[in-house]
């Protein structure tokens, strides 16, 4: 059944970096990015037998899983934060220093600005700069290719404003 498709390990090794970068641009810490990336590939591994290459590209398939996992993370985090605010005053989780030391990010400040954008803008930028075409971005975000382009361009302008504001 799987003879006509790329071995999962090749897919995994080819896309791990891009999926991690996509996730990392949206979440605050390398630890969260690792957890979500791990979840993405565990889910993908379980679902690979059902992946149909004629209907979608491996990239679009993997990024759909990554997007869902990231949204799940934010939903769960929202619940945790609300609970925390309600019942106790805990400090924000700090970035794991070992993770910070070992991951490779050259544009940490820029990605922090990306992470600060509204959800759909952040998603549009992250998907587009992870190498997806606008039609794939649109499909993943549930809108047309043109709408995805508009959303992306609005997002880049918002990002530029955020970068400028900090520079002032």
């Amino acid at each position, binding site marked *: 059944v799987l003879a006509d498709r*790329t*071995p999962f*390990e*090749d*897919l*995994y*090794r*080819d*896309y*791990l*970096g*891009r999926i*991690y*970068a*996509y996730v*990392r*641009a949206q979440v605050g810490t*390398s630890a969260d*990015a*690792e957890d979500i*990336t*791990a979840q993405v*590939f*565990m889910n993908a*591994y379980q679902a690979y037998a059902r992946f149909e290459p004629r209907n979608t*590209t*491996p*990239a679009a398939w993997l990024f759909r899983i990554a997007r869902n996992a990231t949204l799940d993370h934010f939903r769960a985090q929202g619940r945790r934060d609300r609970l925390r605010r309600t019942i106790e005053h805990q400090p924000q989780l700090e970035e794991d*220093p*070992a*993770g*910070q*030391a*070992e*991951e*490779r*990010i*050259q*544009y*940490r*400040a*820029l*990605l922090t600005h*990306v992470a600060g954008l509204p959800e759909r803008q952040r998603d549009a*930028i*992250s998907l587009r*700069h*992870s*190498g997806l075409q606008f039609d794939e971005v649109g499909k993943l975000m549930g809108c047309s290719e043109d709408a995805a382009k508009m959303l992306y361009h609005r997002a*880049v*302008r918002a*990002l*530029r404003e955020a*970068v400028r504001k900090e520079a002032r």
Partner: protein
Amino acid sequence: VSEPEEELEIQALQRELDDAFATTRPRPALEDELWLRIQSSRPAPSRLRDAIAGFFQGIRAVPAVPAAAVAALLVIVIGVGIVALSGVRFGPGGASTASQYNGSESDQLALGTFGRLPTPVFNATSKTTAPNATGAGQADLAAPAQLTWTGKLDLKITSAPVFRYREPTTNEADQFASALGAVLRERPPGFLGMYSATDYTLKVRGTVQLPPSSPAYFIFASATMPPVEAAGASPQDLADIFLAQHSLSPQWRYTVSVDGTGDPVRVRYERQFDAPGYGAANLVDINGNRYGLEVDLSANRPVVASGVLPATLDQAGYKIVTADEAIRSALASGGTAPAASGAAIKLNQAELVYVLVPAGDHSFYEPAFLFSGQYQLNGQTLTKRVLVPAVDPSQRTP
């Protein structure tokens, strides 16, 4: 801001985003750690099925094996598979390579050898690296790589030293921290200790078995860490001063590389080992990347420093394979390459390097050959790297 200027600004920002996404990567160890987790999540029957399938592939490559021998071997393979999957371990303390040294280590040292060496695992080292992954797009599907050798490997040595160190203990980690003026706070899982000093936190870790990673220390500056004041100093000068101030200057041979393309600026001290008759051989990880000690500087302020934990090394000479044998191994290792590359790659460079081979209580830095060659894909220049062990197979555990 006028409209053309605004457009230029947007374009520059988009280029920066391209770079940001292409260069953001997880810590190197994650790839193999996560793959192991994925593999271990598979049900045992499918692992056994793969083991048997692999066995039959091996039989196909040797057509002259008599059927009776095949049947006998199959019984052994199934038996071994069942034992492996059941988690049963034989012998006291398991079957780790380190147990070979129990009791007879002093004799082996007296002979100037460490006995048979463990074989390095390079299954993930036939690597393709892209300076900019964005744009590779969906043409990334992998195909078996056809490797050819077009370079020249002029090897004049027939043996090379192997280095061995004993796994650091919590006591040794504490002594290291104490010499820096840091005080033990706790022993978090996976670390020998976590320590505090006036303006930084120190973590010390032992050898990581898989993927192989050397014992290491990590210094994380706190907000009170002052910048290094030295007018006109280069990043390397600043890193040198910081390391000297903390008695962390490398006590081994190294070359320095500075990555100033981002913030923080990263100063790398890449460790080398002396191979008599060959010269300096770089220490590399299983991806072929050099390592040793790194200092990250942001606005002249050290923010992170991490390096191989100092250890006493024993040394013994071992016979190594010939250049021809190394080349044959490299070409046979194959690996994969993006299908759109045509999957034909010319390796044209080779160097002797050292790799970590963890082996329990004692681990080794063993010589290996790092082959590399570049090829083009979608207008990008990619590098294929292949690592092969250098120690002669007769000197290694089967």
